[in-house]
């Protein structure tokens, strides 16, 4: 039953009293596990640790679910003394220092990108229940909303929504529409840039007759900033004063950075988190509603996704026209098969599929990752883990690609450092 937990964390954890904690025993009563990623040398982590301690102690004292939650500290510390000292301040167990190599796997599995980070996962299955534990600690200090799991969009957004001409609309008017949930703020320069593009895209999609609406969820720092920013937008917004609703929407989608544009289908299910990249790449909105494509062509606008997790990249020598397309067609069936498999499991894809031709950006990527000078070249790049997996063979066939993919998923491949 708690095999998953043992696989994830190992057999034993350690607590501040240097005592061992048996993971099997722990797992048998837990329903929710909070993974706290942090480092003793990082001031924001220390600050968050303080708030988390308060939250935890109160929860363990007053909540009816107190035995169902446990937090485990996963450290990025490289120095044992630092690690030990930090652990002393914590009332929960931690991944043993000698097992710190496991941390990378956890980072990748839960797509951790910065510290401090707190991710709540189901203790039985390991599925992410809430990505943004920091918000939970901030907004629900009494822990009343345990287990802070996902709720349907319609439920979380329920309430009046504004237009910048002072009119209001009820959230029920979103029914049957494709919705773009737009997390943005005026103080953020990349956000302002995206808004300019989005205004155009919004107009194009509406004019083509599709049922589409955008809901702006502001991360502005004041009502004035919000008003100023919202005046540029032709769509709906959650009222700034409704801080709770804004925060719950943030938490629902695990928003950690802005700008983020989440695309939902007419039933409120998420189509893609990469709305920003899609909109920028497709100014004429021909591919709306941007269902995730199995294979992408690597370009400057989507290269940012390389940092978000492992990516399979097939580099080809695209000097002569026509090598990029066959490459895409070669790996597309494999990508589609994988997509279907993970969709059935209701899990996200373990990695994205890219083909990369020849341009300055691809060249500098190859330089940066120190790849051999060959084309075609099949790789899996895991930038956040600073690892690469390279298959340097004379010939690339679908069979070879599939074998490579399966080996990676079975963890049989040996990573090389970037």
């Amino acid at each position, binding site marked *: 039953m708690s095999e998953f937990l043992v696989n994830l964390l190992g057999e034993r954890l350690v607590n501040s009293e240097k005592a061992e904690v048996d993971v099997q025993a722990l797992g048998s009563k837990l329903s929710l596990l909070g993974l706290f990623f942090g480092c003793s040398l990082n001031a924001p982590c220390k600050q968050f640790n303080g708030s988390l301690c308060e939250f935890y102690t109160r929860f363990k004292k007053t909540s009816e679910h107190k035995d169902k939650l446990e937090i485990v500290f996963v450290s990025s510390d490289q120095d044992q003394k630092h690690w030990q000292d930090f652990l002393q301040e914590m009332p929960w167990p931690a991944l043993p220092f000698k097992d710190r190599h496991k941390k990378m796997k956890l980072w990748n599995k839960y797509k951790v990108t910065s510290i401090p980070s707190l991710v709540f996962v189901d203790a039985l299955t390991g599925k992410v229940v809430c990505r943004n534990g920091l918000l939970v600690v901030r907004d629900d200090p009494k822990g009343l909303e345990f287990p802070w799991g996902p709720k349907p969009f319609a439920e979380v957004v329920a309430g009046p929504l504004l237009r910048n001409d002072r009119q209001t609309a009820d959230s029920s008017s979103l029914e049957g529409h494709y919705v773009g949930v737009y997390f943005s703020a005026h103080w953020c320069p990349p956000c302002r840039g995206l808004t300019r*593009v989005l205004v155009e895209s919004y107009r194009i999609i509406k004019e083509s007759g599709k049922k589409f609406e955008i809901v702006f969820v502001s991360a502005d720092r004041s009502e004035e900033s919000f008003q100023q920013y919202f005046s540029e937008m032709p769509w709906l917004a959650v009222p700034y004063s409704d801080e709770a609703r804004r925060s719950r929407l943030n938490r629902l989608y695990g928003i950690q950075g802005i700008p983020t544009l989440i695309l939902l289908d007419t039933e409120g299910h998420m189509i893609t988190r990469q709305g920003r990249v899609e909109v920028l790449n497709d100014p004429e909105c021909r591919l709306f509603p941007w269902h995730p494509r199995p294979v992408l062509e690597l370009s400057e606008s989507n290269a940012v996704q390389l940092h978000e997790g492992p990516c399979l990249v*097939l580099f080809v020598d695209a000097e002569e026209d026509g090598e990029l397309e066959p*490459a895409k067609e070669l790996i597309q069936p494999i990508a589609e098969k994988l997509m279907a498999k993970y969709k059935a499991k209701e899990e996200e894809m373990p990695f994205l599929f890219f083909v990369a031709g020849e341009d300055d950006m691809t060249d500098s990527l190859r330089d940066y990752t120190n790849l051999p000078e060959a084309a075609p070249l099949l790789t899996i790049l895991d930038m*956040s883990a600073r690892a690469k997996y390279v298959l340097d063979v004379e010939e690339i066939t679908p069979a070879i690609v599939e074998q490579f993919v399966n080996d990676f998923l079975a963890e049989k491949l040996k990573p090389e450092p970037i």
Partner: protein
Amino acid sequence: MGETRVIYHLEDEHTPYLVRISVPAQRVTLLHVKNALNKHHARFFFRSEDRDFGVVKEEISDDDAVLPCDNGRVVCWIVSADSQIDFRGADDVMSVATPTSSIAPPLYMALPPPPQAPPPQRTRGIGDSRPPSFHALGEDLEGQAPLHKASNRQRVPKGGSSNQQQSSELETTSFCSSDSGGRFSQSEHSSSSPQRLRRQRRRHRKKNAGKSMDQSASSVTDSTMSLNITTVTLNMEQHHFLGVSVLGQSTDRGDGGIYIGSIMKGGAVASDGRIEPGDMLLQVNDINFENMTNDDAVKVLRDVLHAPGPITLTVAKCWDPSPKSGFSLPPSEPVRPIDPAAWVCHTAAMTGRLTPHYSVHEDTPLSVHSDITTVVAAMTNQRSGLEVRDRLWLKITIPNAFIVVMMEHDYVRMESERGFDRMVWRTLYLGLDKLGRWGDVRI
């Protein structure tokens, strides 16, 4: 002005030579140079300007052609007629002796011989008339030829692998299989799958020193700000200075905010620890930077710092996808401080004058007392001797940037309003204009 100064670079050498030709600059021709140098079987590339691309090397082979010159000065590169000009510029032609020369070869462009009527004297003022959209391209001096399309690249296979002989054959094979779409097996694959990608040849690409990606405009759209906003109040009594350098970002669409560049040990910010390099500054005390230009924001910041009392800074964390806790320049960035003294001596020896030869206003030599904007304008001048090019920092391309390490040696004692002497870094304040310059301010 009855003579022309000709500065010429010989193939592999770092330091150029100077020769004077007693012909007025407007009339000096290629033949004059050939005779003066006694080099008749060489290829000559002259520093010239293209309206769209900025500085280019113009190959001139017509002996009677009047040379492009600039204030009585002609700059040229001389390459032997036999050597192959590698358009990628980096490995093969440039010798190992000059890892990063400050006057690196820009675009190679061979222009046809000029028409009979001699062209007017080209004026200086690089960059003034350049359209902003070409800004990033034109200023790039490090051999990163942005004009490149893939078709221009010369593929010189290293080591001549056996694959090469078969390449044409293999190419046809792979194209054949892609054309006959019916042979794609969508569901099951077998080991004899018809579709395959064959290794055609080993690639040989230019090695880029920097990772200069694209223009600054789309880099702004690519970065992400964290929602993690931190407010930090610093008690300035213990630490007398903030200890940060501040960078401003500007694009042609307006100012993109000010960011913490680096944090100096011993300063108030360093000892607090919560503010990190790359953080964007949103507010100081109760003054919000949101609607201010970068210039104004920095002025406000300096004003607040000169007043007594604690300082409250509000920052937003910048999105760094890699799980490292620190930011650093890309490892390929050669941060080599230039010794100003040696540099001055060298140019003095070359020109017989004490002031830097490559200054914007030749008649007003620079000194410690010069107005700061003049100093900086001189530094950003392509001929200043500093490596001025587009640089990649935190995934943001900084056009026209140079490493300011050398300025650490140039500090000024100032009496502060707080009534005690302190050494402060010389403030370098670049006017942030619409072309997207970065300013580096040390406070």
